[in-house]
């Protein structure tokens, strides 16, 4: 399995009236062909901004990618011309978004919205594109696809719209599908259906997936690898089993400690992580998690640790060895 995507030192900032927001602060990660990478972290930790940066969809102004490389099939996405990146978007790399209620254009039919990528990237004519659109809708299990293809988004439920989004994403057989919290806006039963659908389609098509979520349960069932992000940094990166069995970063431990467990004692309380993430405009000099960290030592407040390998395919950015939750 070759490397599909290699991100090095990606750094994205937003230049606002209040100051420079350090949204993504130099992250590195690799993604192999056909692999599923989960990116987890709380709101505002830079998950979405990092993948939007790869797609070069950061609203600019105020946002700007200020540094880094993103090698995809031998080319740096961040150095491409507008025209080159457009030929990648929706074609080699597709993206689906959080809220299917607002991510589809209300005034265009499903056919118009799915077909346009087919016409653009695969050079199909209207008739071919329509036929393919119906096939795609059938592939994402939309019942009666041939009759629903000319409906408008408001005639679909939330789950069905997310299926349409997925069909749209898969239309040009991408090598990489980026899913930005695609199930967050859906209710739980629909979430499960969408996750199953993506798993099956992934098996059929064999694309790589980056799945962004704040739901650790979703990641456990779906991903091969996990990156945990905090305040614009990747603080831990590991294969999914290792992440759950042997978390090494206090933040990851905190996240896992705040999930309810079916096998826990009934009276057992959840342990939330106290405090709030740092202000991304005025970042502290040390580790960004240090003020909230139970294990913090003096060094943590002065120096920000780099991501370092601690075990096979497992790296952590922390000065303290917190193996197994002990100090």
């Amino acid at each position, binding site marked *: 399995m070759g490397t599909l995507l290699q991100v090095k030192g990606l750094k994205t900032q937003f230049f606002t009236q209040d100051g420079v927001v350090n949204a993504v602060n130099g992250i590195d990660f690799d993604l192999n062909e056909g692999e599923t990478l989960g990116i987890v972290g709380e709101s505002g930790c830079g998950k979405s901004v990092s993948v939007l940066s790869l*797609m070069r*969809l950061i*609203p600019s*102004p105020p946002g700007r990618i200020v540094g880094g490389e993103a090698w995809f099939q031998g080319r740096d996405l961040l150095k491409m011309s507008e025209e080159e990146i*457009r*030929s*990648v*978007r*929706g*074609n080699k790399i*597709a*993206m689906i*978004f959080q*809220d299917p209620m*607002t*991510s*589809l*254009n*209300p*005034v*265009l*039919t499903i056919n118009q919205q799915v077909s*346009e*990528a087919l016409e*653009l*990237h695969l050079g199909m004519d209207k008739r071919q594109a329509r036929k393919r659109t119906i096939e795609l809708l059938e592939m994402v299990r939309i019942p009666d696809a041939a009759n629903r293809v000319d409906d*408008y988004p*408001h005639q679909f439920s939330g789950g069905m719209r997310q299926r349409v*989004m997925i069909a*749209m994403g898969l239309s040009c057989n991408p090598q990489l599908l980026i899913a930005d919290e695609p199930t967050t806006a859906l209710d739980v039963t629909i979430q499960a259906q969408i996750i199953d659908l993506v798993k099956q389609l992934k098996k059929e098509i064999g694309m790589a997936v980056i799945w962004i979520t704040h739901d650790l349960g979703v990641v456990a069932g779906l991903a091969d690898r996990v990156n945990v992000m905090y305040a614009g940094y990747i603080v831990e990166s590991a294969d999914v089993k290792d992440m759950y069995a042997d978390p090494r970063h206090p933040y990851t431990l905190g996240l896992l400690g705040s999930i309810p467990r079916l096998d826990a004692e009934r009276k057992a309380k959840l342990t939330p992580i106290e405090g709030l993430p740092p202000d991304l405009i005025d970042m502290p000099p040390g580790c960004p998690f240090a003020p909230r960290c139970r294990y913090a030592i003096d060094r943590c407040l002065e120096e920000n640790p780099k991501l370092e390998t601690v075990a096979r395919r497992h790296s952590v950015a922390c000065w303290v060895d917190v193996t197994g939750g002990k100090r």
Partner: protein
Amino acid sequence: MFRYIVRRLLWMIPVLFFISVITFSLAHAVPGGPFDREKALPAEIIANLNKYYGLDQPVWKQYVKYMSDILLRFDFGPVYSSRSRRVNDIFRDHLPISAQLGVLAMLIALGIGIPLGILAALKQNSFWDYLGMAVAIFGVSVPGIVLGPLLILIFALTLKWFPVAGWGTPAKMVLPSIALGMRESAIIARLTRASMLQVIREDYIRTARAKGLTERAVMIRHALKNAFIPVATILGPMFAVLVTGTFVIEQIFAIPGMGKYFITSITNRDYPVVMGTILLYAVFLVIANLAVDITYAFLDPRIRYT
């Protein structure tokens, strides 16, 4: 859709009925009468005139007569200030001119306002945005009574490109249409810009970009139709105002339109002309708003009428 249009047109009947009742009673409630002059006429003459025009009757009887004349003979009544002309003559002679001017002004307003608004939104905070919005603020804040003479001074008297005043030839139509359309174009430009700016922040625009569409395709295919919905809303009343005549511009350019009758009929207590002009405006307003509502259905598939 067809049933909806029919129903809306039928609704015009009660609407116009109420407007006519209210206007008629208000016009007659205002002190003074159509034959009051600075140098008072002899009482007998006034009494005779009142009798001749039926003004000595109770107001409700006058109303019934007025309405039955319209409904039975399509006769909008006499003009008190002119023995030889009736309200129907005013409509026939002056409405087409006002309508021409109004339609031209509307075309100018749309032709300048929409592209300017789109340009300003796409190049937000750039030179084009500031230029466009400067023009728009100028257009909104400079009234026709200033803009009209200014245009005459520059383009008619100094540059001699267009005639100073009058109506009937295309050259004469240019300056008044601009003077009238400028303000409306500014309103349209500002609304279009605001609406575009809102739409291009929508999630579905990001989806369209994520598909790899060109910026041009994103704007034309995905943004414009959505952005036009709020703009369409203001076009109905705007159109009704423009085509039924505008006092200031018609006076400045000596255009024989409807505009002056709106104003003079009220000061003269010329009741049939007051009624006629207001009912005409009401009919245009109701129809223009219906047209806007039908346009919504074409712009936005979520809006369906039954």
